[in-house]
Structures are given as structure tokens and as C-alpha cells.
């Protein structure tokens, strides 16, 4: 038991912090927001080819560095600090998390290898138009007929879907003789697939909405997948989202601390007013708790991957916990950041609102806190039979 970074992890963190703050500062972000991709593709090349972050946490068998979730969380945290809009979260944090739950197979491994190298990016299609969490929300179905495999349905809220090369789709498996779910890969250019970019409240990251009309160009990555397998992949993805939220909430706390240390009103630095100080203290409590939760959950993911049977329940708990705390916490911290900035906090030109909108977007992503709390209530045994007194 040593719940602090190793020297290697500290080094990864330092490198990421330095790179991100130099190359993805606020000005770069504003520039990226004007582009079609919402991020700088050449920088993404650097990130994948030179820094190797896409492959960092993927198995060596698919060309990754074989490190774990803790290392991925470190990178995502640093990207969250900058509200980076590039595809690391979508392609590695989300899509690969599902792929890694599927049994190893040639097609799956080939795709993972492309993602690890950065040659391609994937986006995860797993929810319908209401943007809800859970298996019931899956809106795409896999059929098989004389023409072969066929996908129909709608997936929405597909993160980074507007720029992905491949969609990893969780589909209901309705083929004769099959049951449960299938995980399939579909190329962006597949016939019958319509990809609409959807501008969102969070301007740092648009969504895509996908319409599948008899899409035939389908690569089956895993068939007859158990619902729990999908859920576990999503749980790992929740930890990734939370890591990004952690970075962002820490950044907006830092931004606010620095603002109130300079802004003068009534002849005093406003950071000297208790109303301001104490709220910042409460924000810090939330951030520190988030940090504990994220890295603990990341460790649980690594434990789970080493021994899935023993640690499945713990993964479910940690994933729900971390998503609840970081979603509610980031929203709270970013909301307070606006308040403490006063008027400038809700202007378009200032970054506080960007954090707030990112908080809201990630609040709902893979399930809002209310949903996960209810999930925790079940895990706590509130519905179990009363013990005999």
C-alpha cells in the first residue's frame, strides 16, 4: 500500500503538465475553438507519435506501452486542466475501455493497435437521442440477413464523433441465434451512415449524432457480449472522464485563486474577504476529495484488469463514486468560479464560462450523479432483504 505517485508517475505528470501548458494554453484553446476539429491535428500528431500518450495505457501486445489506468488518468488530468478538446478521452478513455473488455480477437487487436499508434482515432457510440446512461439507452441494433451484417438505429452524444476515423458501436444483437450485445466497428465513411456534427453548450467539444440506415460495412469485434461486460467497460470509461474533470476543476480553482489575489475592490484584494476565502476553501475540499477518488478508482481499474473476478464489485463501486463526486464537484467548483469572478466571470471572452460548460457536459456524460447515486444505493444493499434481527 503506497497511495502516492511513483517516481515514474511523477515524471509523466511533469512532462504532461509542461507540454500541455506550453502548447495548449488559453490562447491556443480559443484558436482551436474556431477550427472545424476543435483541436489542432498537428499537435495531436505530436501527442501520439512523439509523446506516445495514445498507447501509454494500452497493452504491449497491441503496440502500447503497457502502463495502466493511473498513468492514463495523469495525462487526462493534465488535458482537463487545459480543457483540451482532442480525441484522447474519446478514443482511449472511452472507446478503448469498451474494446479492452471484449475478448482478444484479431479485429479488435488490429483496431487497438491503430488507436495506440495514433494512426486512427475512435469514438464510442453507446447512447440514443435522450443521452441517458445504461444498456437501455443503446439505440443501435445489429441484424443479419442475406446481405450479411446490418446496423440500424441512432446513436447520439458521440464524443469527438465529428472527427473520429472509426466508431466503436455497442449494439443490441438481434441476429438469429445470438443474444445480448455486439461490439462492432464502423468506418466513418461507411455507406448508410450519416454523421452530423452537433454544436453543444460546451463549445470546447461538439458531439456527433449518427444515423445508421442499413449500414453493411461493419466489422464485428465481439458477439454475444454480456450486458455486464459493456457496463464494466463503461465503468472504466467513467474513471477516465472523472480524471479529466479533476484536472479541469483544479484549473478553474487555480484560475479563481489567482484572480481574487489580484482583483481589488473596496481598496482590498478581494481574496482577503472571508466570503471569498471560505468559498475557495470549500472548492479546494472538493478538489482534494476528487483527487483522492480519481486515483483510487484508477488503482481499482488496474487491480480489476489484473484480476477481474475478484475486483468487479469494487470497480462498480469506485466508478459510480468517482463519477458522482467529480461531476457534482466540478459543476459546483466551476459555478463558484463564475460567482467569485463577478461580472467578468460570465463573459464569453473569459475562460470561467468554458469550465462551467465543460462541467455541465461531463456531468451528464455516461450518467448524471443522480443515476449513479441510485446505483450506489443498490450496491450498498438498501434493497437486500432485512437481516434477521
Amino acid at each position, binding site marked *: 500500500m503506497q497511495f502516492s505517485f511513483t517516481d515514474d508517475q511523477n515524471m509523466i505528470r511533469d512532462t504532461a503538465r509542461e507540454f500541455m501548458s506550453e502548447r495548449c494554453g488559453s490562447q491556443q484553446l480559443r484558436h482551436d475553438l474556431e477550427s472545424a476539429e476543435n483541436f489542432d491535428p498537428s499537435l495531436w500528431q505530436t501527442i501520439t507519435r512523439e509523446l506516445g500518450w495514445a498507447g501509454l495505457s494500452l497493452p504491449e501486445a497491441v503496440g502500447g506501452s503497457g502502463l495502466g489506468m493511473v498513468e492514463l488518468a495523469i495525462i487526462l488530468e493534465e488535458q482537463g486542466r487545459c480543457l483540451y478538446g482532442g480525441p484522447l478521452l474519446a478514443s482511449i478513455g472511452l472507446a478503448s475501455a469498451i474494446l479492452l473488455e471484449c475478448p482478444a480477437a484479431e479485429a479488435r487487436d488490429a483496431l487497438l493497435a491503430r488507436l495506440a499508434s495514433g494512426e486512427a482515432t475512435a469514438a464510442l457510440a453507446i447512447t440514443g*437521442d*435522450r*443521452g*441517458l446512461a445504461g444498456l437501455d439507452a443503446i439505440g443501435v441494433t445489429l441484424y443479419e440477413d442475406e446481405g450479411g451484417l446490418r446496423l440500424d438505429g441512432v446513436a447520439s*452524444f458521440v464524443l469527438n464523433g465529428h472527427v473520429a476515423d472509426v466508431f466503436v458501436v455497442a449494439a443490441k444483437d438481434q441476429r438469429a441465434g445470438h443474444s445480448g450485445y455486439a461490439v462492432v466497428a464502423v468506418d466513418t465513411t461507411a455507406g448508410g451512415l450519416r454523421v452530423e456534427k*452537433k*454544436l*453543444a*453548450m*460546451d*463549445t470546447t467539444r461538439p*458531439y456527433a449524432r449518427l444515423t445508421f440506415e442499413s449500414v453493411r460495412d461493419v466489422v464485428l469485434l465481439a458477439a454475444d457480449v454480456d450486458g455486464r461486460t459493456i457496463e464494466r467497460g463503461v465503468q472504466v470509461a467513467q474513471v477516465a472522464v472523472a480524471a479529466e474533470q479533476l484536472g479541469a476543476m483544479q484549473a478553474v480553482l487555480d484560475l479563481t485563486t489567482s484572480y481574487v489575489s489580484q482583483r*481589488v*475592490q*473596496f*481598496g*482590498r*484584494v478581494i481574496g*482577503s*474577504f472571508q*466570503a*471569498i476565502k471560505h468559498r475557495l476553501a470549500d472548492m479546494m475540499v472538493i478538489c482534494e476529495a476528487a483527487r483522492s477518488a480519481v486515483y483510487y478508482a484508477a488503482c481499482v481499474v488496474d487491480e480489476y484488469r489484473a484480476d477481474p473476478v475478484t475486483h468487479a464489485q469494487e470497480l462498480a463501486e469506485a466508478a459510480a463514486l468517482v463519477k458522482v463526486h467529480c461531476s457534482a464537484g466540478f459543476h459546483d467548483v466551476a*459555478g463558484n468560479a*463564475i*460567482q467569485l469572478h*463577478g*461580472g467578468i*466571470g*460570465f*463573459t*464569453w*471572452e473569459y475562460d470561467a*464560462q468554458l469550465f*462551467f*460548460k465543460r462541467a*455541465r*457536459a461531463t456531468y*451528464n456524460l455516461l450518467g*448524471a450523479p*443522480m443515476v449513479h447515486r441510485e446505483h450506489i444505493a443498490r450496491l450498498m444493499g438498501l434493497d437486500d432483504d432485512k437481516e434477521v434481527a
Partner: protein
Amino acid sequence: MKIRFTPEQEAFRAGCASWLQQQMEGPFADIRGIMSQTFRADRRLEWERVLGQARWSVIGWPEKYGGRDASLAEQVIFAEEYARSGAPGRVGHLGTELAGPTILHFGNDLQRERFLRPIAKGEEFWCQGYSEPNAGSDLSNVRTRARLEHGPNGPEWVIDGQKIWTSLAQFADWCFVVCRTEEGTKGPAGISYLLVPMKQKGVTVKPIRQITGDAEFNEVFFDGARTKAEYCVGNPGEGWKVAMGTLAFERGVSTLAQQMTFRNELERIVEAAKSNGAASDPLIRQRMAEAWVGLRIMRYSALRMLSRATTGSLGGEALTYKLHWASWRKKLGELAMDVAGAPGELCVGEGYELADLPYLYLFSRADTIYGGTNQIQRNIVAERALGLPKEARGDR
């Protein structure tokens, strides 16, 4: 203590309700229910002229200035019916609710004659020159300056400085400007309250785009802007009292109109929840009930304020009012967004255009900031109502 209206007052209610309904279902149906402050401004300015011509614009004012000498109860009734009809928020409200009452109360006859009727008739629109970049919540720290000059047009104030968070400045013909007119003064002393025409070379308006993508607020730059010497309300150097008086008018009948807007917002949230199933979620139901409770209480508190105002004494309810509604509406915004769910995150138009509920969510973040942040409001309540020690200033 009585909460009912008399039959005569109920008849008055029926009268204004039917006129308003005619307008909102007839000639102005196109601007009914608009929530944004800036959307379709041209048509709304037309509507306010019609309102003024029909003498429904400022019914509490004396008849000779375009009002109806309406009683408090009648003003309450009209405000409620106005909002109930779905008539849009008033672009002219800074004139009808702040500038007008201030001039009526603190101005002289010359000023009343010049300014009140055009406000009542919807012919001249106003904005409020209070906040400055370095005095967001600290009005007594204004740096905008004015000096008297005797030029070819007689004595005139020449104004230099910058205001910020000036809402509706882009539509305004006039601005009431709080500025320092006595060199070397600090704090409340040496401040004057000037009425300044906006359509002149020395005034530049620059919209501030905000979190919603809209731009209700503006920066206003005064660069040698001019106004007549006689357009100073109260004595030069004694404008602080006038400026504070204006703020007191903010707690007038218009609060009831604001509440009807809130009511419409809550209703829209209820409808959305009923249509997407959120209405059956026990947590949402609790929050809906809480919102409803807060809204109702706001109405009761407003009626208390208004009733007390007629007896001449404002109580604690007046000082707590802003804090109450601002905190309430921020929560309403969060409820709206939770009801809307993920679909509410998607833009509805080509550019950055949001549906009503998410728009409310974002806009309401400003409620606890403008017009005195919640922090400032808590100071006011603690110091003025509870008599706790004043905050120490760093500079005097």
C-alpha cells in the same frame, strides 16, 4: 391585513387583461413570450410606443406625465396581468422604473418636463451608468469624471470615463451617469448624477458577449461626451443620495412583473418535465415544489414591501429581496437544466443558439452577480438590517 382585491380592482384587472390579450394575440403576437432581452428589439420598441400611447406604460405616474395616478393595488394588478399576457420584457424598463421615478422624486420641474413624457410614451429609452471596470460592486469608487465647461452652447458637463455591464445601452437614447465631479474627493462625496444623451460623438457603446452567446450588457466609453449643466439631478457633488434612491426604486412594483416572468419560466419547466417524464422523478418533484414555494413567497414578500412602502417604512424584507430572488433563480436554472437533460446541451440553431431551458440555466448564473453580488447583498443585510460591524475598507 388583507390580501384580497376589491371588486373595483378586479374589474380593473379584467380591463387591462383584455386589452393586453388583444395586443398579444393580435398585432404583437410575433413577440409574445420572448425571453432574451435583446431579441427582436425593433418590434419591441414599437410595442412599447403602443403601450405608451394607450397610457399603460407607467400607470403609477401622475396623469400629466403620461400616467394614470394608479393606486398601488392597480399597479400590482397591471404588472401581474402584463406578464400573464406573455408580453415581452420591457426594453424601456430602465427609463420607466429607474430614471423616471428618480427624476420624479429627486429632479426639478425643468427635468420632469423634459424627460418624463418621452419615457412614458416609449419615445426615449434609457440605460444606467453605474458599474465601472474597477468598481464592479463598489459604486463609491467611480472614476468616471465630469467637469463644467462654458462653451458656445452655454455651460455643459464634459464627461470622460468608462462604464461596464450597462444593459440595453445599444438601444438607449439617454444614460443616467454616476460620476465624480469634484477633484480630489473619495467615496460618496463629490459624486454627481448626470443625464447624458447617448447619441453623440463622445459616446461609444461596445457590446459584451456573455456566457449565453448573447450580448445584453455593454461597455460604454465616454470620451469628452457632453450634456447640459441643468441635467444634473440633485445638487452637483450630492449625487450619491440620488444614486442610492434609484436603487431603492428597483424594489418597487416592477418586482411583481419580474416574478410573473419567473412564473412563466417555472411553468415552462413543468411542461418540459411532464413531456419528457422528469415530472415523475421524486427528486425533481421535490425541487419543483421548492421552486414553487420560493416563488410564492417572493410574491408575498413583494406585497409586504409594497404595503409597507405606502406606510413609509421599508423593513427587512426589502433588504433581503435581491438575495432571495437571485439565489432562487440560480437554482431554478439548475432545475431547468436537469429537467432538460443531455438533449438540452445541444444547440438548436445554426450558431450558438440554445433552447429556453438551457438558456435560463446559463443566464441565471448572472443573477447572483449583477445589481450587487450575493456577497455584497449579504453585507448589506448584515450591516443595515442586523446592525453588524461594517466591512473594513483598505483605502480609507
